[in-house]
């Protein structure tokens, strides 16, 4: 086992890994995302609050975090260990809303800075006789850690009274989990009534998973049943593979809880002795530190791949969403192309106008109708693509991300944009037509607008506008007509591409804003392998 010296390379590798973990994001609401997010937060807390500071400063005092279910008597236990009321205990639950850290005055500097638990604002209460109404309430929205000093605690040991791990207040639960992550020694408090509860067992299993230094306290045991309860609990622990965990039993005494009295020193003496021994005996201390620290380091080798696979799942989901959009727009684009070729634009109004042209319809009207019809075709393609995307996304759980669901609810915008693009095309086409007409030397030059209308008809009308092509050739000559058709066709293609592309980008924009990439996965794994090489 590696001893706990300060090792810069390891620390570097660790902080690189920490940054990778901090950068990991799981914005898509996949099945595993909440868990991945929680894992990431927990891992980050463990790295920031425990592993990095501990490896950097192995000489810092041991931190024992007292955790457990609501009403297990954590505060009472801490108070009794310290020998005075440092943490408020009460019959009302949840009691401890502000975590309290107690340490020897000499150790105060270790905790007053932001070395551990940097997220928590420190509140330092000057030594005074605490009374019930003097609970410091932190500024709203900021989480607070109260630091108390007590001469009665030996130097090199700090106790942290955490909120309930199963508190009704979700924030408390998160905070409790974060505090547990910062511990060198996990002190799990349970009671005679609770020792079979699922929640504390979950915590015990987690502690086992991380191989943290763990000690359990069976609190509030009525003295008549001490033997039996303790035996039962022991059996359960053994069954869970935690038989070797030190176990302490605190009997239920009249002063034990419901009033916040202190337990007599004898009740907690054995626990206190054990803790003091861990803190002051160098060998025991080193072992405690190494065990927990290496437990966390070891756990990285399974937790990092988990995060990485969650990141990969995010990327895969994003890719699926993107490809759904691409597929929809591609197929719609192909359809628009096909329809243009078959002359679908020259239908309805436009067709009627064309029939009437030039006797009963002016060139301007024909152009108007054609342009409008083209805009309708494009709008139809875009909305159809959107519909297909919606359909495909409905089957994807990832598409429920709030950023993706509240799109701009005005499809008129698309209509507006398409209208603009189509009108611009018309204008440019008219300019081309004028160029051609001007190039003609003939005195009786044809009307440029009529030429433009004929070109538009040829371009948009497909086969059914054959006679328009003839008319055009008649007016401009075969050569000029061909040139104009080519230029106009290219222009049409450009505008068409641009419209479809813009709409596709607009659709993809929120997805891209979520910034889900393939890299985090590889980076996480790479950081882990660097770390493992350093160990």
């Amino acid at each position: 086992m590696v001893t706990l010296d300060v090792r810069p390379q390891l620390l570097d590798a660790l902080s690189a890994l920490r940054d990778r973990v901090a950068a990991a994001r799981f914005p898509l609401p996949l099945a595993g995302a909440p868990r991945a997010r929680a894992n990431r937060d927990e891992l980050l807390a463990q790295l920031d609050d425990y592993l990095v500071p501990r490896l950097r400063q192995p000489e810092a005092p041991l931190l024992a975090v007292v955790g457990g279910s609501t009403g297990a008597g954590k505060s009472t236990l801490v108070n009794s260990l310290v020998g005075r009321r440092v943490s408020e205990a009460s019959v009302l639950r949840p009691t401890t809303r502000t975590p309290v850290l107690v340490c020897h005055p000499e150790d105060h500097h270790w905790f007053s800075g932001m070395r551990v638990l940097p997220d928590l604002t420190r509140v330092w209460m000057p030594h005074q006789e605490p009374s019930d109404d003097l609970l410091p309430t932190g500024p709203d929205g900021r989480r607070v850690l109260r630091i108390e000093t007590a001469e009665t605690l030996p130097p090199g040991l700090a106790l942290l009274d955490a909120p309930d791990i199963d508190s009704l207040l979700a924030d408390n639960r998160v905070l409790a989990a974060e505090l547990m992550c910062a511990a060198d020694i996990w002190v799990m408090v349970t009671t005679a009534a609770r020792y079979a509860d699922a929640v504390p067992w979950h915590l015990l299993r987690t502690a086992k998973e991380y191989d943290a230094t763990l000690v359990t306290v069976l609190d509030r045991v009525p003295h008549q049943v001490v033997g039996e309860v303790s035996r039962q609990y022991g059996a359960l622990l053994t069954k869970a593979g935690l038989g070797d965990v030190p176990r302490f039993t605190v009997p239920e005494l009249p002063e034990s809880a419901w009033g916040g009295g202190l337990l007599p020193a004898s009740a907690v003496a054995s626990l206190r002795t054990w803790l003091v021994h861990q803190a002051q005996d160098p060998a025991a201390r080193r072992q405690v530190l190494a065990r927990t620290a290496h437990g966390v380091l070891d756990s990285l080798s399974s937790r990092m791949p988990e995060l990485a696979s969650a990141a990969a799942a995010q990327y895969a989901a994003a890719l699926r969403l993107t490809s759904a959009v691409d597929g929809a727009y591609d197929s719609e684009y192909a359809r628009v192309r096909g329809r243009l070729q078959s002359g679908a634009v020259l239908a309805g109004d436009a067709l009627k106008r064309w029939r009437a042209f030039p006797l009963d319809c002016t060139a301007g009207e024909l152009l108007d109708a054609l342009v409008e019809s083209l805009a309708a075709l494009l709008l139809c393609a875009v909305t159809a693509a959107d519909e297909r995307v919606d359909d495909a996304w409905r089957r994807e759980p990832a598409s429920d991300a709030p950023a993706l669901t509240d799109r701009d609810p005005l499809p008129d915008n698309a209509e507006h944009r398409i209208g603009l693009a189509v009108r611009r095309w018309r204008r440019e086409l008219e300019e081309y037509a004028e160029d051609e007409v001007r190039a003609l030397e003939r005195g009786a030059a044809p009307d440029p607008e009529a030429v433009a209308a004929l070109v538009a008809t040829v371009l948009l009308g497909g086969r059914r506008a054959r006679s328009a092509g003839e008319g055009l050739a008649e007016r401009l000559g075969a050569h000029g007509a061909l040139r104009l058709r080519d230029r106009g066709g290219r222009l049409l293609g450009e505008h068409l591409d641009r419209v479809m592309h813009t709409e596709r980008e607009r659709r993809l924009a929120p997805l891209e804003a979520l910034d889900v990439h393939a890299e985090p996965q590889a980076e996480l794994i790479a950081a882990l392998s660097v770390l493992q090489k350093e160990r």
Partner: protein
Amino acid sequence: MTAVTDQDHTDHTDHTGRSDHTDHTGRTGHTDRTGRADRADRTHHMDHTDHGHSADDRAHEEGDHSVTDTPTGEPSGEGTATAPEDTRHERPAKRPDAGPDRGQDRGPAGGPDGGPDEEPAGGGRTRERAERAPTRVPRDPGTDRAADDRTGAPADAPADDRTDSAGAWDDGLIARRVNEGTGAEQGVSPESRVGAAPAAPAPLAYDGPLRSRLDALRELVGLSRARLDNRTLAEAGRVLDEAGARRKLSGQHTVVAIAGATGSGKSQLFNTLAGVTISETGVRRPTTAAPIACSWSDGAATLIDRLGIPGRLRRRPVQSAEAEAQLDGLVLIDLPDHDSAAVQHREQVDRILALVDAVIWVVDPEKYADAVLHERYLRPMAGHAEVMFIVLNQVDRLPGEAAELVLDDLRRLLDEDGIALGEYGEPGATVLALSAITGDGVTELRELLGQFVGERGAASRRVAADVDGAAARLRPVYVTGQRTGLSEEARDEFAGRLADAVGATAAGEAAERAWLRNANRACGTPWLRLWRWQQDRREPAATGRLQVRTQADEEATARQRVEQAVRTVSDRASAGLPAPWGQAVREAAVRGAQGLPEALDELAARTGLPPGRPPRPGWWPAAVLAQAAMTLLQVVGGLWLVGQIAQVMAPNLGVPVLLMLAGIVGGPLVEWSCKMAARGPARRYGQDAERSLRDAAAGCGRARVLDPVAAELLRYREVREQYGRVTGVGAGAR
């Protein structure tokens, strides 16, 4: 005193006794009476003797009863047709008095010396029956349908009112009687033998509003099957099933489960209420592994069957007259914990909590704020507040005023969970503190429980809360709170888009202009016509007159416009609808739109103007004539002048010049006035053309798209109303 364990009743198949019945066929019409006498004798002599016999006894009850309730079923078993008839005559008559005092009637009658006690109850007939009795004393005690008659009738009577499902009812009844007999028979204490010939408890009857809500929910589920997936409807289906199952079972009983965390003292409270140690208590956690039932009165066996609690876990409380009277009809279930590491406990709790009529949540000062209790159970069940008791146990562990503090905090938490608290006489959950060990507050709970059970309303209230819950969960798929339906504007817009797609406006304008053009041509001055004709000959393409563009148009309708129109209208129609229904509307629209463009093509070809020249109005010849006259005037005037110039005619400048001038001026004048005159008809002609196309397109669209969409909307509205019935009436009834 110890509690009594029910035995499994698996050996009821012995029907040999039935063969005896055929012996008595001669006594037509009296079988019941003699049977009754037998019964009296039998209870007198044979009680306390033989459990095996009793089992037989029950088996025959089963056989007989099936005959009684279905007279056409197997009359030979009874050997007489009059007996069932007899029964039916007696029932209504007995109903009024038998119903109310059934409880007290049963006590003495079923006791060890029930025989003599029966005399007054049976009236004159009993005496008559007693005369015959001696002849049949050794008879197998199988045919005691008389006893059935007497005690069974009151219970059956309400059943006869319910004519809905006779078959199902029969089954339920038989099962109940068999089980219940067993439950009572195995009792060791004499009190529990009361049930040897117990009354079948009346089934639960939901009140009118609840029944109609259940019906509405059933119909709603039926209507929604095609639109919603099974998972969405599963909850509602389960509620219906459970409501149906509960309805068939006893309405005289209230099943109350005691639930809570491990170590809160559920079993302790259970034992305290039962007055005897039934459920094992201990420090070992979790203690109770399987639910245990305890029934205060008979007839609850089927109810307990429904919970899946085996016979070996059924108990009777210690009977004392006072407790019996107070908690009559209570079936108490001690549940395992819901928060221990043993997952199967949680599953059992979840399963049974869904089936019981009411719940007593036991919390203790240590655990009352556990997240798992509040988040997993109390919050989701907030709607069931009326059938909830929340009991703060172990107050003896709290010093003095702390109990009040904790109780207040508990109330606060419950309030945050959204549970209505039954204070100040409002309906809601009952919260109280007690100590099962010292007995503090247990009396109060017992009183409240007695009152609660006595009301016999828990089952209905639970079902009502279930329906509320199911309705609330279904709300998002039925209600959005927005206005739904297809507005008139949306319909008009759809018609407009279709008209665009077929080009109605353009066609109208073209028609109008063509008409005008023709009018001009027809009424123009001949010189003009001559000029035009020449132009035409020179370059035919320019005027388009010779173009043959009237080829067969495939796809004359703009497909993209039709598609867009359908999409827009279906979006409009489905706006404000819950997703599944919106989807259905869209599908209906898309389905209708298939073939719509082709239909519009065909329609446009049919209703569009015939190709070629527009019709000519009657006044054109006159105009042409006038124009011709003008030309003639010009010609005449010209000739005249020419004649004068040629000296053929006498020089007279005035008249020919005048004539010519008249002709020259008159020609354009006629043309102009014709043009003016043609304008109106031309517009009318164009508008007609446009309107006919527009109407045809709109009609086609309506038939193919709007009507299916409207039908779908109507279906939704129907379902929405049904949903309103599921929720609304409930609110009204409260």
